């Protein structure tokens, strides 16, 4: 069963303990200065944004059919069966196509390093594989970040909106965006106020390229035969002409 995270912004109190727990889990530095930074970066995989009295988390959405994993030429990014989208620096060659392709601009780069890698939230893949919840969900004091089976979380999100329609926008962000994501968000105010794009397609992004790429194996023999055929025809004419000319010359020689 695929796991997921449900973040309910209406329950969030902005304590940023998830930020701290995330940094500890991933071996990243965390202090007051980093807590102030309102963007995710190579050293900050999740951030709690504040606007007036509203909060919103940003983290890797761990898409069901992730663009980053689809575009990676060496398979350094992978969607695991449990839900997390992981990164293996040992395979990476640093083309940064994952960063360009991600619809949420999640993957960050270690620009200052001479041997850089991609950094992002991996939904605590080792913890999840060990049957534990993500660090951010475990520490959350209000249950705003909840870890569980994605299907169950989706049902719960629907129920929360249904039971309390005045409290929520009638939209579960991540239910259908880019084909669905493991991380889902609930909010009372527009997601776009916190930098989330609300114009995303519901189609899984890898389908855009796959519908072209998948035709290549069919295309190669067809086009190859076409080119070879054109060569054969255009040069055949010439062989005939040459043979005729030689014939003529030979006859001329006899006479």
């Amino acid at each position, binding site marked *: 069963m695929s796991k997921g995270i449900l973040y309910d912004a209406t329950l969030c109190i902005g304590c940023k303990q998830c930020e701290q727990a995330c940094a500890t889990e991933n071996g990243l530095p965390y202090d007051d200065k980093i807590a102030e930074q309102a963007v995710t970066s190579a050293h900050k995989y999740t951030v709690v944004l504040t606007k007036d009295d509203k909060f919103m988390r940003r983290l890797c959405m761990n898409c069901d059919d992730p663009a980053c994993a689809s575009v990676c030429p060496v398979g350094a990014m992978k969607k695991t069966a449990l839900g997390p989208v992981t990164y293996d620096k040992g395979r990476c*060659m640093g083309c940064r196509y994952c960063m360009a392709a991600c619809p949420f601009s999640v993957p960050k780069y*270690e620009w200052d390093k001479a041997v850089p890698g991609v950094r992002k939230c991996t939904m605590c893949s080792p913890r999840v594989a060990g049957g534990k919840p993500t660090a951010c969900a475990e520490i959350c004091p209000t249950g705003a970040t909840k870890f569980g089976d994605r299907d169950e979380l989706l049902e719960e999100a629907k129920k929360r909106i249904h039971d309390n329609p005045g409290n929520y926008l009638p939209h579960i962000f991540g239910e259908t965006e880019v084909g669905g994501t493991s991380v889902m968000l609930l909010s009372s105010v527009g997601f776009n106020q916190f930098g989330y794009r609300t114009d995303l397609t519901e189609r899984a992004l890898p389908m855009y390229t796959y519908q072209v790429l998948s035709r290549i194996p069919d295309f190669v023999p067809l086009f190859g035969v076409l080119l070879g055929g054109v060569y054969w025809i255009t040069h055949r004419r010439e062989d005939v002409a040459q043979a005729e000319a030689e014939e003529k010359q030979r006859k001329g020689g006899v006479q």
Partner: protein
Amino acid sequence: MTVPRMRFTFWKAIFLLIMSAGIYCTYLRFFHGLGASTNLSDQFPWGLWIGFDVMCGVMLAAGGFTLTAAVEIFNIKRFHSIVRPTVLTAFLGYLLVCGALMYDLGLPWNIWHPLVMRNPHSVMFEVAWCVMLYTTVLALEFSPIVLEHFNLQKPLKIVRSVMVVFVILGVLLSTLHQSSLGTLYLIMPNKLHAFWWSPLLPVFFFISAIAVGLAMTIFESSMSSKYFGRELELPILRDLGRVLVVVLALYGILKFEDLYHRGVLKLVFVPSYAQRFFLLEIFLSVLIPLGMLLVPKIRESAQGLYLAAVLTLLGFVTNRLNVTITGVESAVGARYAPKWTEVVITAMFVALGFAIFGLAARYLPIFPEEKKAQIPAFREPAYAEVAVPVHAGD
């Protein structure tokens, strides 16, 4: 001959200046990282090196497959004398692209990974394989020139006997990766401005590669006649100019239809950052060159052809930069301008290209020798040369 010598020393000085700046920037790039040597950021992970060095580099090398296809496969013999310089340009172009890629990749020593770590769903994986294979094919297509120079008859014979296979393979691989550079962006419908994101991106990239291949050949022949004192093959260039008219017209019509059907046409008339660059691109790449080449007087003249070709090249360079930079800037709401170090590295690769082409043209049999052709015993032994061109007028 004193005047051209002066010119060459001037260009030599410029070349040395660029190269020494390039070496310093190389140090910055590899010892201090991409952050210190580029203006790239998390919002803007691909910049000038991808936009120009790779995207335009591959595009500008398209003359190789366009001309070999015309001469070897379609058997259009009158283009034969210009195949070698275009194959040289293509081979050089791809080597430079690979070189530039080593600067852009974060972990360039892992560049061989796609050979053993496979993700066939990745367009980049396909491009990596195609570019790798095509560079090998180009080396083989180029090899007769070197073998002839050293008079190695036996390997020359072997290479020639299988040349057709290389040519077909080369055209196939080029078709695949020229279009795939456009396919790279299909996965970003939300991160590329509607002027440029289109399901037809691979088709546009392919057709424009052919247009650029033709324009580059005209440009190159004009330059060679100017700097190597070669006779200008004007009748050939006129023919290329005609083909260019057709290709540009096809491209222009398809572009119009694409914008129309996607409902983007009205945006062309709304002033914006993206609109200015889009108009610049369309005027340079299609409207002005097409307008010029449709006038017989311009199409027939050496200067007219040269100017139209240069505009076409600038236009499609603008197109590739619009796709990689302007179109992304507009969609993600971030601005990017290359750092001086990025510009220097790019200039270094361009300078290297010119320098190596110059050296090769001087020391290798790139151009058919007009003098030699007058010696009756001389027989151009190239693969497509056949003694009796009875149906040459097809």
